[in-house]
């Protein structure tokens, strides 16, 4: 068994409103005069997983995402090996 580390990047789908992102964008625009035109606040989940090989590890990460980490109704995700 080997350990593999991944980052799961979770974002709301583009048609889902993100009030937290909108608020942060507004502060950057209004308080700091930084011309941010779009800001979406998601979450990144760092995890380490034990598996025989990278392919198996990746399958387990996908399972974790589909079962619990991501609500695929409103969110999308990307998995990166780190």
């Amino acid at each position, binding site marked *: 068994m080997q350990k593999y580390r991944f980052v799961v990047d979770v974002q*709301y789908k583009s048609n*889902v*409103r*993100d*009030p*937290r992102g*909108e*608020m942060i964008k507004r502060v950057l625009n209004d308080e700091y005069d930084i011309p941010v035109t779009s800001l979406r606040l998601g979450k990144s989940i760092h995890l380490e997983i034990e598996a025989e090989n990278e392919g198996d590890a990746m399958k387990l990460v996908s399972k974790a995402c589909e*079962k*619990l*980490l991501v*609500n695929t*109704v*409103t969110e999308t995700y990307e998995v990166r090996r780190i």
Partner: protein
Amino acid sequence: MTASFPKAQVVVYPGSNCDRDALWALRYVGFDAEFVDIRSHIGSDVNLLVLPGGFSYGDYLRVGAVAAREPISSEIRDFMSRGGLIIGICNGFQILIEMGILPGALLQNSTGKFICKIVELEVVDNETPFTRYFERGEKIHLPIAHGFGRYVKTNGLVNSQDNVIFRYAQDVNGADELIAGISNENKNVLGLMPHPERAIEKLIGSDDGLRVFLSAFNYIKTSSENMLQKTKVGVA
């Protein structure tokens, strides 16, 4: 019928905080009501389940997400399939959605703020076990207290006309079509963001919530009497 009929249970998750209000409301209208711990089991003689409000598991990850994956969820699904009545209030509604029992999603209020106030609602459908004591189109007042109550429709909600039970009279949290409460197709499951269990006494602002529990009580009583009637006719 025995004294313990109809029977209700309030599912207590770690972080539930409206469980006592729900129990009080259920007993007030005549239910034989008790708490059920998530490590325990739903009683075989239970007629109504309430999933109360609160912040189950701190609402970490997503609201209701962890609670929805507790082993007791499969018992809740079985209970629903048998035709048992379920009311999910606030966090309970969020849990029912994460379980996939009700369609859609509940996301952060469009204002970005936690909203705690009494709001006006319209009763859209009074032909459910939970709303038979209301008039169709009646305006009622119930408290809301949520940060994540913006209902978002998804493909699962094919015909919102059939599923919507309560709408906000005015926009409060950015919900699609002002949706405040929905049911499943069979109408034995109600999920709503407003708190009927906090509106049992006029003294504290409203007693409109009382009729949600009275409706369920009456529905259970009359359907069991009908069953008895049918049995008698069958014997005769």
